[in-house]
């Protein structure tokens, strides 16, 4: 069974609100760097960045981070996951880095992302922005900015489609029964 839980308008509103929260909490955007986690977080990071830029003016640095080599389940998977690109465009030393991902679930990707990020430098702060928080954390990790909290059961699937062209955006919850 699959239900559409957010449509394109809902997603835009959520991104706009998160952009405002990010600016408010960090008192502007001067020391910020956004880093999207491959693959789902990359488009969201770009969307958040252009929203922040349109509110504050100026440019914000956006990077992408592949966490494959830092995963904690490499020894148990059937096959090695594909290694994707990591591009961190600026020094992250003493910056406020906002990690961006589409869905926050067990928290294990975020743990891997923090380890990967710290190999690039020593940020002053790391904050976390996600579009969907679906619960079921297995590690002591929480989001600083969440688009929407959605109760799910563990075996559900949350699918986030963020097309480059806005109108196809949606979030779908797929459950087993």
């Amino acid at each position, binding site marked *: 069974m699959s239900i559409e839980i957010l449509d394109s308008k809902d997603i835009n509103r959520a991104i706009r609100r998160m952009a405002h929260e990010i600016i408010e909490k960090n008192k502007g955007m001067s020391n910020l760097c956004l880093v999207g986690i491959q693959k789902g977080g990359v488009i969201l990071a770009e969307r958040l960045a252009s929203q922040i830029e349109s509110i504050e003016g100026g440019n914000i640095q956006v990077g992408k981070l592949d966490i494959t080599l830092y995963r904690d389940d*490499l020894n148990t998977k059937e096959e*090695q996951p594909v290694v994707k*690109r990591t591009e961190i465009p600026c020094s992250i030393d003493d910056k406020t880095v906002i990690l961006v991902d589409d869905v926050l679930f067990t928290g294990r990707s975020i743990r891997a992302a923090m380890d990967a990020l710290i190999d690039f430098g020593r940020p002053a702060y790391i904050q976390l922005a996600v579009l969907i928080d679906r619960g079921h954390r297995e590690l002591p990790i929480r989001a600083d900015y969440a688009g929407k909290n959605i109760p799910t059961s563990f075996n559900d699937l949350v699918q986030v489609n963020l097309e480059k062209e806005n109108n196809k955006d949606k979030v779908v919850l797929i459950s087993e029964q």
Partner: protein
Amino acid sequence: MIKSKHLLGIKDLTSEEIYHILDTASGFRDVLHRDIKKVPPLRGKTVVSLFFEPSTRTKTSFALAAKRLSADFVNFSVSTSSVLKGETIKDTALTIQALGADFVVIRHPSAGVPHFLSNILDMSVINAGDGANEHPTQALLDLFTIQSRKKDIKDLTVAIIGDIAHSRVAKSNIYALTKLGARVRLICPPTLMPAEIERLGVEVFHSIDDGIKKADVIMTLRLQLERQSKGFLPSLEEYFKLYGLTSERLKLAKSSAIVMHPGPMNRGVEIESAVADGPQSVILEQVTNGLAVRMAVLYLLAGVRK
């Protein structure tokens, strides 16, 4: 996507598998340009090298690749070991396995030794050169270098010059390049050309000037001086005169052509210094790319479970 946990030769790989290794290698090339050049995916794994022939670059490259993936690397030194006391290669390999290694990287003067070991060992066997048979990671790093300079390997004209008969590098590259749709030309003296090599889908030239005409890629091979005592060549000077890659000859290839060499080079024998150090040379790039490719191979083979 990678079906076997051993890398014995390019002959056994599909073109999809080759492309998958190359794609993975580009992810690892990024790692090599960071301040911290170490990533954790092979923590707790052990790579042992077992080399029955001298090698510095391949062994060092594998050692660094393993260490940058956070694996432990141990060299099993043949010249000071039980091999000298008459131990068979099978027993040596089983000993290494019993010590808890996950990979053995082997080089041996006899073709087929890695294949033989792969049938009796549970750990992954990586062929780092077996006789005149194959040297698969060299061909993969050559492909990776060509791909990063030329984008698409398909339909490129690649000229390989040198001692084809004794060259495992040539053999692996012939398999690899033809699988990916490149046109391969082999250039060497008749005495060093294996009979019926055309059956591998290559063109044979005995004149370097004809062979490198309009080529996109020129691979020079090391003239294996240690194997030239059997009278294949009148002299090294004559070899250079007839088959050495000089700047003058290089003009016959496309102006965008790249020059490769697997190393170690004999300057003034198969390649002129001006070419080796010239703007078209990608020889040092090959060395750096070798690290990324070997990291990709170790990473991917570690994921194949049986």
